[in-house]
């Protein structure tokens, strides 16, 4: 009962990211080296020639994009699911913690770059993370202590509204401190891209993407180890099952709940730095949509379930990338031009006539979410009481 979900998590991580494996092995090599192409890939290329190879490259690229995005969602989703698992509260301010993590790291990195200390780029980014994590932990603690703890016995709607209020307050504090303008994240780590297949022009993975996916997996593994292998983890799981009984057993519930918030905030801080360095941009509103999607990921996987959050995050990222990449073509009305003269006529001047274009990028994920929830209301990995943390 203890180990089964943990095992599942480990499988879902590397299995989902299987495509990237060759790229990791190639890391020590200099970029642009062809990587050993998987055997299947080779056969496909032989059979279907260049066209398919190009398509496969595009597909692999979308997969790489989606997995990178998905691992960020997964890390943020963990924060939502942990808090929900333990006190059944949806902490809507969590997205804002991610944003503050990014902003703090940005400030530190900018200061260090400006100071010109001659530090290696990686050390500067790590320094940014090392400052952002404690700041976000402090915010996470403060949120719990000031806003949620006094409301723990209040009707469930009260802390939910408080969470939304806190989210707005944090956004505007950031607006005042960091301005309304999008801030550029200094790109101090030179981007090196490796091609995933033996096609030099084909799918690529950059060192930043590898770092994001790697860090996410390491953090997920660390979290799982914490929850299933430590005393604190046992206390967290006990509290999630029944706070009252856990209290009677001598567990300091307040401390456990506060620590849950703090751990979630630490993950959020790292996610913030990852998003910032990946996209090279940070803005006071960046936490909102990210938080909403990560929350959806948590629901998709089954809120309250750690492995579910990871699976949901990765899935959501991949669905989004593939959705934006392919739904436009799949719903291209010109494919059915022979059905209707009116469509055929319009296709002459506009061959890109589609029903759903990439502007639905943010919507696909929610389509899938609804579809899953209709058939599995408790999410993909359900809400088995024993899995909660």
């Amino acid at each position, binding site marked *: 009962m203890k180990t089964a979900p943990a095992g599942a998590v480990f499988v879902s991580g590397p299995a989902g990211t299987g495509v990237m494996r060759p790229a990791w092995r190639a890391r020590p090599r200099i970029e642009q080296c062809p990587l050993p192409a998987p055997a299947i890939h080779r056969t496909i290329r032989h059979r279907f020639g260049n066209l398919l190879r190009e398509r496969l490259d595009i597909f692999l*690229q979308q997969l790489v994009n989606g997995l990178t995005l998905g691992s960020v969602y997964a890390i943020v989703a963990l924060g939502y699911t942990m808090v929900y698992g333990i006190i059944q509260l949806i902490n809507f301010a969590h997205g804002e913690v991610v944003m503050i993590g990014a902003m703090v790291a940005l400030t530190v990195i900018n200061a260090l770059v400006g100071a010109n200390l001659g530090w290696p780029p990686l050390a500067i980014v790590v320094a940014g993370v090392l400052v952002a994590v404690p700041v976000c932990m402090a915010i996470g603690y403060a949120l719990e202590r000031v806003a949620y703890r006094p409301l723990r016995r209040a009707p469930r709607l009260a802390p939910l509204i408080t969470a939304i209020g806190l989210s707005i307050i944090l956004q505007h504090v950031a607006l005042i401190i960091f301005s309304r303008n999008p801030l*550029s994240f200094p*790109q101090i780590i030179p981007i090196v891209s490796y091609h995933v297949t033996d096609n030099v022009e084909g799918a690529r993975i950059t060192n930043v993407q590898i770092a994001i996916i790697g860090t996410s997996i390491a953090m997920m593994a660390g979290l799982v180890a914490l929850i299933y292998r430590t005393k604190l983890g046992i206390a967290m799981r006990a509290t999630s099952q029944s706070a009252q009984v856990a209290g009677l057993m001598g567990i300091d519930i307040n401390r456990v709940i506060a620590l849950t918030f703090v751990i979630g905030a630490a993950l959020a801080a790292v996610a913030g730095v990852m*998003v910032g360095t990946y*996209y090279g*941009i940070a803005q006071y509103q960046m936490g909102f*949509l990210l938080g909403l999607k990560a929350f959806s990921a948590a629901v998709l996987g089954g809120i309250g379930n750690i492995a579910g959050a990871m699976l949901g995050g990765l899935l959501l990222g991949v669905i989004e990338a593939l959705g934006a990449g392919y739904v436009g073509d799949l719903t291209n009305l010109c494919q059915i031009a022979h059905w209707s003269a009116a469509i055929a006529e319009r296709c002459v001047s506009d061959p890109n006539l589609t029903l759903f274009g*990439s502007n639905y990028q*943010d919507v696909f994920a929610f389509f899938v979410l609804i579809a899953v929830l209709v058939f599995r209301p408790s999410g993909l990995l359900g809400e088995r009481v024993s899995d909660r943390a």
Partner: protein
Amino acid sequence: MHAHRIGPSRAIGLTLVAAAIFGAYGCSKEEPKKAAAPAATPAAPAAPAPVAEESVTVTIGHAGPLTGGIAHLGKDDENGVHLAVDEATAKKIKIGGKTVKFVMMSEDDQADPKLGPTIAQKFVDAKVAGVVGHLNSGVSIPASAVYNQAGLPMISGSATNPKLTEQGFKTIFRTVGRDDQQGPAVAAYIANELKLKKVAIADDATAYGEGLANEVEKTLKAAGVQIVAREKTNDKATDFKAILTKMKGRSPDGIFYGGMDATGGPMLKQARELGIKAAFAFGDGACTAEMNKLAGPASEGMICSQAGIPTQMASKAFTDAFTAKYGEVKQYAPFFYDGANLLIAAMQKADSSDPAKYLPELQKISYDGATGHIEFDEKGDRKDAEMTIFQMKGGKVEPIAIIKAGKTTKIGGDAQASASAAPAAAPAMAPAMAPAPKK
């Protein structure tokens, strides 16, 4: 002026929320407003009445944001009008046999559409002879109805939204081009100068971005350029890799994006990370130095367009006089300077500062100003307005060509070379975007 698209009303709303939470912040916002008001008022009482027997005072209104995020641009415009007014007074122009003393009445519209009509009414009540402004399209459009009803001429030197002059108002003019002239201009450059054959287009699904991208698409198609992909994102997105990857699958040699720099910069950066070598083109929303900050070295070589002529192309007489008095020209000052001079020239021609009398003269004016020759069409738009194509060079957006009435004039010797070499420049960008060691 594209700043109106950032949504001043939302910005104000946010400020109000912030002010409600942080009282101190709200207070500090009040100060500049109070400071600006007394500066403007002395002109108002002096405005209507003639001062002496043989000399009269004619007041010209200026409106623009003098506080807030784009206050520096509003001040730049105000300086342009001020210069024109001072020069006209110094010339001792006679209207109706009397020497005229021109004064400026400047009002702060805070780039807020809601304040547009209020300020306009203020000018009408103060019986100014004409108005130069407003800076933002979003403010100019609601204000224009008030001016039109009062029969008061208004000339904007920066409002580019087509709607301003499409309302059929007889008293509304502009000295700058329109957004719907910008798309065709940048498309013409892509098709005729860069000679690209397969172009992918994306936009941010805003009125501005989509409108611009549609214009570009139309013109490119007409020029025989193949549109290989038409994608959409939104103005708050940060991840463009999905649509860029899709574009990459169609191997375009050029990509046009209709949107602001906040999304255009990251998009450009991500495209280079994906190994897309296509040339990138943008509209004025992403024609800023910010692009270099957001996209880093990937921004080098990008093309973008702006309405009007670049500030460094304004007439030397204007530039010298302006810099001596106020320092560097920021953006639209020459267009506002011309706006004020057009009003004065029309008054001279009609020999009257009565709007009803000089308005017909303004409509059919033919005038050589700081920004070149100016004539208005029946809508009040500038005939053959120029569009400028810029290119990112060494981290700065520099003008490389001016497009007027479909004809392209290249600027500067080295610009000529680089523009003609642009198709070759696209592959040359590759090393810059790949793993090039950069700091």
